[in-house]
C-alpha cells in the first residue's frame, strides 16, 4: 500500500519513501515530502482558501457531519496499491480502506490494541458529528455565518444595561491566517479532533502525520473530501523533522505536540501552539478525602484509559490524607491490567513499537526509585517486572508511585503508559505545587477551594467533581481555543447590517 502526498488535494508521488511493516508480509509505504515542497504549496494557499470561502459554513458543517459517518463506517480511498501483471508490467489501483483494515493497520504500527483504536475512532467520529457543538463552544455560541461574512449580530449582555433591538451587538471576526499546519503525533489518534473544526471555519489545513500513524489524518481528510469538502483545502505531508519545522513555521498558524523540549523549541514563534506534556492531575479536597473508596474506579480510569498514553490521563494524585490506603487500593486495581493480545476485546495496555523507548522509560523510573522518598506500590501487586515481553511485544505494566516528597522527580512527571504518582499534602498547598497542568479534576464541593481553582493560572481545563481527567465535553475547548487561534475580533463601528454585505450566494434563503 502506498500513501502518497496530497498537495492541496493533488496526489504526488515522492522519490523518497519510508516502508512501514504491517506484519504478515504487508507493507505501508509513505511518500516523504521535502520541506521546500510544502513551502511551494503554500504559495498557492489562496486557491485553497478561496475554495472553502465559496461554500457556506453551514454547508461545510453538514459535510463534516456526513464525513463522520464515512470515517466510522465507510470504505475510503487510502493511497494506492500496485500489482504485477504479465510481462512484468505493474498495474495500480486505489486502495479502499475499510474500518477493519484501518483498525488492524493502525494497531500494527502503533501497537495500540484494536479496542483502543476503535475507541479513538469513536472520539474522532464524535468530534466530527458534533462539530457544530464544538464550534459553538469555541465561539461562545456565535452562528456559523461569522465564517461567511465575518459579521454576526448577537444580543447585548444584560449587564450592558441595554434593551431592545438597538442593543444588539455587531461582531466582526477576521481570519488571522489562510493556513493551519498541524504536526501530529503517533500515540493518540484522537488528537486529530483538534484540527477538525478548522476547515469548517474555512481555514485550509496542512497535516504532517506521525511516523507510525499515517492513516488517521488521511482517513479523516478522505472522508471530508468524499462528503463534499473541496480537496484543495487539504495538504497531507509525511515528512522529516525538518519538514515538520517547515510546516509549522511557514503556515500562518501551527499546532504541534510534544515534550517540554518541543515547547521550548517553538516558544519564539507566537504563531505556533504547542500541546506539551499534560501532567494532568486529580486533586482530592479535604471535604471528599474520606470518601476516596467511592472514587476508586474514577482514579483507575483516569490513569489507565487509552493505555495511559494521553496528555489527559492522570499522572499525579494529590490528597490531603489516606495516601497509603489509596495507593495500595489503586495499585491493586492497576496491577490487574495486564498485557493482552492486540486483538483482544479487553486489551488496554499498548505495546511499544520501539522497544528502546520502553527500556528508556523503565530504566529512568527504576533509577529515580533509588532516590529516597518514592515507592513503586504496584510492584507488590503485579507479577514480574514492570517491563515484560508478551505477544511478541514489549509492554510497560501500570505503575503507581507513592511519594513522600512532592519534589521527588517521580512526583510530577508523565510517561506514555499507565503511570501516576500519589502525594499527600494539605489542600491549601496543592495549587502552589501543581505547576502547569493540562487537566485538573478536583474532587471537591468546597466553594472556597473551587473559587481558588477557578482563578488558578496553572490549569488549562478544570473538571469540578469526581470526574476522570480524560472526560471530554465537546462544547468546551481542549487546550487553547482554536477559534481564537485562527480568528481575531476587530472593533467595528457604524451602521452595518450583516445581511446587507454578505455575498449574495452565501445568504440563507
Amino acid at each position, binding site marked *: 500500500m502506498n500513501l502518497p502526498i496530497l498537495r492541496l488535494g493533488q496526489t504526488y508521488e*515522492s*522519490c*523518497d519513501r519510508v516502508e512501514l511493516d504491517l506484519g504478515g508480509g504487508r507493507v505501508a509505504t509513505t511518500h*516523504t515530502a*521535502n520541506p*521546500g*515542497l510544502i*513551502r*511551494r504549496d503554500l*504559495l498557492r494557499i489562496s486557491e485553497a482558501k478561496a475554495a472553502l470561502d465559496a461554500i457556506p459554513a453551514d454547508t461545510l458543517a453538514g459535510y463534516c457531519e456526513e464525513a463522520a459517518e464515512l470515517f466510522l463506517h465507510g470504505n475510503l480511498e487510502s493511497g494506492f496499491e500496485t500489482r504485477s501483471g504479465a510481462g512484468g508490467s505493474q498495474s495500480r489501483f486505489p486502495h479502499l480502506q475499510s474500518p477493519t483494515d484501518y483498525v488492524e493497520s493502525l494497531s500494527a504500527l502503533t501497537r495500540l490494541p484494536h479496542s483502543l483504536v476503535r475507541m479513538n475512532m469513536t472520539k474522532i467520529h464524535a468530534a466530527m458529528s458534533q462539530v457544530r457543538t464544538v464550534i459553538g463552544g469555541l465561539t461562545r455560541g456565535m452562528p456559523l455565518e461569522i465564517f461567511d461574512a465575518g459579521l454576526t449580530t448577537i444580543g447585548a449582555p444584560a449587564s450592558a444595561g441595554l434593551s431592545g433591538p438597538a442593543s444588539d451587538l455587531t461582531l466582526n471576526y477576521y481570519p488571522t491566517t489562510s493556513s493551519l499546519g498541524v504536526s501530529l503525533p503517533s500515540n493518540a489518534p484522537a488528537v486529530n479532533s483538534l484540527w477538525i473544526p478548522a476547515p469548517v471555519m474555512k481555514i485550509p489545513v496542512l497535516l504532517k502525520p506521525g511516523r507510525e500513524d499515517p492513516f488517521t489524518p488521511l482517513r479523516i481528510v478522505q472522508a471530508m473530501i468524499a462528503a463534499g469538502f473541496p480537496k484543495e483545502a487539504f495538504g497531507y505531508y509525511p515528512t522529516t523533522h525538518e519538514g515538520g*519545522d517547515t510546516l509549522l*513555521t511557514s503556515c500562518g498558524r501551527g499546532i504541534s505536540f510534544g515534550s517540554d523540549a518541543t515547547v*521550548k*523549541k*517553538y516558544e*519564539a*514563534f507566537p504563531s505556533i501552539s504547542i500541546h506539551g506534556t499534560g501532567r494532568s492531575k486529580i486533586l482530592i479536597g479535604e471535604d471528599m478525602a474520606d470518601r476516596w473508596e467511592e472514587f476508586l474506579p474514577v482514579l483507575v480510569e483516569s490513569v489507565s484509559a487509552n493505555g495511559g498514553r494521553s496528555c489527559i490521563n492522570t499522572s499525579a494524585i494529590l490528597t490531603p490524607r489516606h495516601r497509603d490506603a489509596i495507593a495500595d487500593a489503586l495499585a491493586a486495581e492497576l496491577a490487574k491490567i495486564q498485557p493482552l493480545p492486540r486483538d483482544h476485546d479487553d486489551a488496554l495496555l499498548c505495546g511499544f513499537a520501539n522497544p528502546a523507548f520502553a527500556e528508556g522509560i523503565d530504566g529512568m523510573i527504576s533509577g529515580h526509585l533509588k532516590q529516597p522518598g518514592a515507592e513503586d506500590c504496584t510492584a507488590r501487586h503485579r507479577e514480574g517486572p514492570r517491563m515484560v515481553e508478551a505477544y511478541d511485544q514489549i509492554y510497560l505494566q501500570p505503575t503507581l508511585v507513592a511519594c513522600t516528597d512532592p519534589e521527588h522527580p517521580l512526583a510530577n512527571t508523565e510517561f506514555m503508559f499507565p503511570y501516576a504518582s500519589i502525594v499527600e499534602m494539605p489542600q491549601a498547598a496543592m495549587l502552589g505545587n501543581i505547576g502547569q497542568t493540562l487537566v485538573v479534576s478536583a474532587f471537591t464541593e468546597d466553594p472556597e477551594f473551587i473559587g481558588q481553582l477557578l482563578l488558578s493560572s496553572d490549569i488549562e481545563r478544570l473538571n469540578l467533581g469526581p470526574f476522570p481527567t480524560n472526560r471530554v465535553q465537546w462544547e468546551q475547548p481542549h487546550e487553547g481555543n482554536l477559534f481564537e487561534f485562527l480568528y481575531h475580533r476587530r472593533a467595528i463601528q457604524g451602521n452595518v447590517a450583516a445581511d446587507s454585505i454578505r455575498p449574495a450566494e452565501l445568504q440563507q434563503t
Partner: protein
Amino acid sequence: MSCSLTPEAAAEALDAHVREIVRWHFSPETGCPYWLEQAQSLDFDPLAIETFDGLLQFSHFDDEILRKEDPARFIPKAFAGRPYNVFETGGTTGMPKQRIGWDDYKTDYTEFSEHYGPNFFPQGANWLMVGPTGPRRLRLAIEHLANIRGGACYFIDLDPRWVKRLIGMGEMRMAKAYQEHVIDQAATIIRHRDIGCLFTTPKLLESLAERMSLADAGIRGVFAGGTTMTPQYVRFIEEEVLEGKINYAPTYGNTLMGLAISKKRAPGEYSLTYHAPQPRAVLRIVDPDNTDRVMDYDEYGRVELTTLTKEFFMPRFLERDEAIRRQPCDEFPWDGVGDVRPFQSGTKTVIEGVY
C-alpha cells in the same frame, strides 16, 4: 562530455600521478616541511610508492592538523616565495581548518567549465554567487569560473558559522530571519542586474525561487552544492524550483578536494553520482569498520578522500559523509559516489545543509 580513457588507462594515469605527487611532497628539493617531517616517523619509504594502492600505507589524514599547524608548513619548497591564498573550510566553529593554495582552484573550475561546454551556462553571462564567501576557496573559484566564461560575478555573502551557532542556540526564528536577509539581497541583485547564472546552495535556491520565477528573471544555468540532495530533492529542484527551464549542475565538493562533477543523467533519473577530479583527487567508498576495504558497487560506505596536487597532499581523509559506490562511466572512467548523505545520518542527529 565523454573521456577518451578506459578505466584501465585511467587507473594507470592515476598511478603515474601518485608517483609524481608523492615524490614532489617527500623530496627535500620540492616538498613541504610538514610532510618531510612526517616522513621521518613513517615505517615505510614514501618515495618507494608506485601506485595508488601504495598510499594505503598512510594512516587516515587527521584534519585537526589543519587547525593546529601553521598553514605555512604546507608550502612546497618549490613554491617558496610565491604569494598564496589561505582558505578555510565551510561551517566549522572554533579555530578554523585552513588550507593554502595557489592555482588549484583555477584548474578545478576551468575543468568544470570545459566539461559543461559553452551553452549549459551561457557564455558571456554574468553570475551571482549566493552563499559562503569570506575566507573560502569557493568565492574565488566562482569568480574565476564567471570570468573564464566571459562574465562578471556578483556576490551575496552568507556566514554559515553564524547560522550553525543560531541553530545550536535554538534560535530558529533568527536563523530564518537571517536567511530572509540573504535572499532579500539576492533578489534585489537579480531584479536590477543582468544575471544569467547562479551559484548557490539548494536551500537558498528554493527560497529565492519562492520570491520569483528564476526562469522569467533570465537565469539559464544553476550550479549548486553543499548539502545532501536526495533523488526527490533533485527532482523537486529541477521540476518546480527551476520549472524545467534552467540547466542544473549539482556538485559535491569542499575546500580540501575541489569539486566532483555529477555525471549526466537520463530523463527521469534523479539519483546523483559524483566523480572526483581524478587524478588530482580520489574518492573511495570504504567499509566504515575496516577502511582498508572498498565497498562493493551499489553499497553504501564512508567517503574517503585523497588529494594529490603539487599544492596539497592529503592521503585517505575520512569525510563526514557516506555514499553509494557507483561504477565508472563514459564521462568519468573511475568510481563515482552516489546519493551522498551525512555519515550515519540514520542513527544520529546531524546539523547539515543549514544554508
